[in-house]
């Protein structure tokens, strides 16, 4: 009853507040696209929710202190969450409290047990524990589209099967000051399995035109690395010469590596948007709460801390690239694609372990050696990288003979050290994962599909031409640039074992599928040994 009353009050106030926000987007330091999102967030229903405590699950407002180091089991061992500032009191903390109207907190989708992201295994478990009532299943973005029948797994299929939340972005794109950007391409919905892109209230042709795409929650930890102001962060983006987005408070350029489309320049502006869109918070978070959220995220580190076979990753003699302690003391803003820093430094002891007569130690050492070999595959195994927008176009030529670490060069993170969006084909056809259509497959495509047409007068996409198809236009939805369509800011490599599936659209269900994607995409031809070593390496990060 109370919830219904709140919803009614919000409904009444929506028009007024929306105009107020629209009128002063920059003065209030809200990014240009957020007022439109705010409108839709107010329109969406708020379902009944409950979030009872459960093993490994942090419920909003549960008030449990967060210890300085918390290990959680995962499929390859244990992931750890390190609070560099010491134990955190979560009661009353805005990251942990349900500060919006739908019962969620930030922690709902950034769970410590999942390396501050959210695994699909955890989502499914939570569905069964709460009969779909946990706030993560809120209609606004935990449903394929907000007005689908609640409680029906089909309404939440993208979240339940691929761990995807709906991200709704205004079309045409909005500049930082709220003005409309004239996009270089037209976008046509050719497949709308969720019903949201053609929806009269939530879709592209609604009164508040929005594109809905579906993405994984990113890791809300190790933030000093991907918000750095070091190598390659300047006023102009090293990949295309265009102005970098800037911190609205300091005016300084951002590394543009926080969100998968780089639409928010700082942790603070990201928190403002996330509160409005994901938590359905009514307005802009106050400075005090924003400061506490940013401070929490800035002292938090997550990485694998033990490996089922390789053993502890946080002992004093563990390789300097592994474990949460090394991560906390590592240097940010450093290019690791070289032999002086390395992306994830290994150690000689792991590369060439001494033989042992103890079979347990021998088995451990063999795994350590495999992880070290996987590191070498990552750093030194060359292959031809072809038709990757924002990689082949930045002076390396197409194709370029390079290695994984060419793109994944950020020291300790494996992200791109510079403004990090690229199109590897995870969302653009023909490389994106699509459901095979044939008379024997009853599964239907789950992802939306958009037809992109680059307008006359602008160059075609360098590798896909003037007309092509995508499941998620990525950075193109923000910049309006044809060659940004499908370009996605790469994710960090830490805590991978705890947070499958991978890629922004959850299209790789496991580390093997992730490696296989690259193998297929770039015709690498990994041997079984290389593939296994690479997977072991990734599982230890």
């Amino acid at each position, binding site marked *: 009853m109370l919830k219904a009353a709140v919803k009614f009050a919000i409904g009444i106030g929506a028009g007024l507040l929306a105009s107020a926000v629209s009128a002063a987007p920059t003065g209030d330091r809200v990014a240009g696209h957020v007022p439109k999102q705010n409108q839709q967030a107010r329109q969406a229903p708020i379902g009944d929710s409950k979030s009872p405590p459960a093993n490994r699950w942090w419920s909003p407002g549960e008030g449990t202190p967060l210890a300085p180091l918390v290990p959680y089991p995962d499929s390859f061992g244990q992931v750890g969450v390190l609070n560099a500032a010491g134990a955190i009191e979560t009661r009353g903390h805005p990251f942990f409290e349900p500060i919006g109207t739908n019962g969620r907190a930030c922690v709902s989708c950034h769970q410590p047990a999942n390396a501050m992201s959210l695994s699909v295994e955890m989502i499914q478990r939570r569905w069964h524990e709460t009969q779909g009532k946990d706030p993560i299943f809120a209609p606004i973005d935990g449903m394929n589209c907000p007005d689908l029948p609640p409680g029906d797994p089909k309404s939440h299929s993208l979240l339940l099967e691929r761990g995807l939340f709906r991200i709704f972005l205004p079309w045409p794109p909005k500049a930082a000051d709220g003005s409309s950007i004239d996009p270089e391409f037209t976008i046509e919905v050719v497949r709308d399995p969720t019903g949201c892109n053609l929806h009269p209230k939530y879709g592209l042709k609604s009164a508040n035109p929005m594109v809905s795409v579906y993405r994984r929650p990113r890791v809300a930890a190790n933030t000093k690395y991907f918000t750095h102001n070091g190598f390659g962060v300047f006023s102009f983006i090293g990949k*295309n010469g265009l102005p970098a987005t800037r911190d609205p408070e300091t005016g300084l350029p951002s590394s543009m590596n926080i969100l998968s489309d780089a639409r928010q320049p700082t942790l603070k502006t990201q928190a403002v948007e996330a509160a409005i869109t994901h938590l359905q918070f009514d307005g802009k978070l106050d400075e005090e709460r924003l400061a506490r959220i940013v401070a929490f995220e800035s002292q938090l580190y997550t990485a694998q801390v033990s490996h089922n076979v390789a053993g502890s990753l946080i002992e004093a003699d563990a390789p300097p690239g592994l474990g949460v302690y090394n991560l906390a003391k590592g240097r940010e803003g450093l290019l690791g694609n070289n032999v002086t820093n390395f992306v994830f430094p290994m150690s000689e002891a792991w590369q060439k372990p001494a033989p042992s007569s103890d079979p347990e130690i021998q088995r451990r050492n063999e795994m350590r050696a495999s992880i070290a070999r996987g590191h070498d595959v990552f750093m030194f195994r060359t292959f031809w990288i072809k*038709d990757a927008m924002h990689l082949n176009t930045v002076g390396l030529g197409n194709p370029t003979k390079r290695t994984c670490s060419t793109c994944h060069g950020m020291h300790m993170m494996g992200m791109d050290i510079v403004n990090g969006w690229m199109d590897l084909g995870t969302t653009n056809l023909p490389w994106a994962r699509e459901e095979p259509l044939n008379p024997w497959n009853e599964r239907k495509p789950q992802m939306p599909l958009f037809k992109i047409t680059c307008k006359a007068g602008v160059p075609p996409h360098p590798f896909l031409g003037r007309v092509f198809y995508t499941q998620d236009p990525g950075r193109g939805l923000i910049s309006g640039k044809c060659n940004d369509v499908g370009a996605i800011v790469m994710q960090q490599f830490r805590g991978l074992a705890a947070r499958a599936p991978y890629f922004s659209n959850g299209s790789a269900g496991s580390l093997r599928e992730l490696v296989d994607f690259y193998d297929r995409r770039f015709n690498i031809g990994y041997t079984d040994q290389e593939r296994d070593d690479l997977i072991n390496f990734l599982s230890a990060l």
Partner: protein
Amino acid sequence: MNRLLVTLALVGSAGAVMAAAPPANHRNFVACPIVRDTSTVPCWLAEYEGETYYLTIQTDVSAPVNPPWLGHKVLVEGTISDEPRICGGIVLKPVALSVMQELDGSCNTMLPAEERYNLPFEPPRPPGPSKGRLAFGDPVTQPKSEQLETSKSFELRYEFDSLVMFRHAQPLQQIFEYARQSNATRVQITGYRAASLLSNGQLMQEDKQIGRRRAEQVAELLRGAGLTEAQYEVKWQDEAQRAKGVADAAMRRVQVVVSR
């Protein structure tokens, strides 16, 4: 023959008229690039009138000459050097390369490594991690504080028919920093349209609007980066008829004068 026809058609679409030929030691032509693997980094070649020319090798983002792209033709504007052949090709040096914007699926030749074509030198950047530095220095380094003059001129050079791209980040940063440090009150921007005199005598002209678009884009980018206080004077000029087949690439430019 087919390749020649395709080239002529492309040249025609870019606006070609007949003019005098460039000097004999210059090769200006449009062709499909060819990539040849080696035991280290790949080298890039192109064929013209039955001869193979060496264009460049793969290095990194700091390279003064960047490799072209398969899937696109490339405009080659180079001078025949007296260096020994590299990867089987006559060395063009200096050389300017412009990737043609439209896709061309016929440009797909990848040649395998052959012992006889291995590089006769160690490349500045191996095909994997560097030795700790970029091959030709940091391309986007923060400009050092310098003595501020009353006005200073900067130049951005462009590929054929193109606007700002990755390699302009550094010069734009330099302009931006200089303007900020000098409290610039005026930014004069002139965009140029140019042409390339090809070895076959055709004059390949840029898009008619490209000079204006270049100038306006640079102004927009500087403003977008936060240089909003200065007064902008934006103009453009057509220099398509100045092409001589020598250093034509240098005519595709934007000149920026920053004044206090």
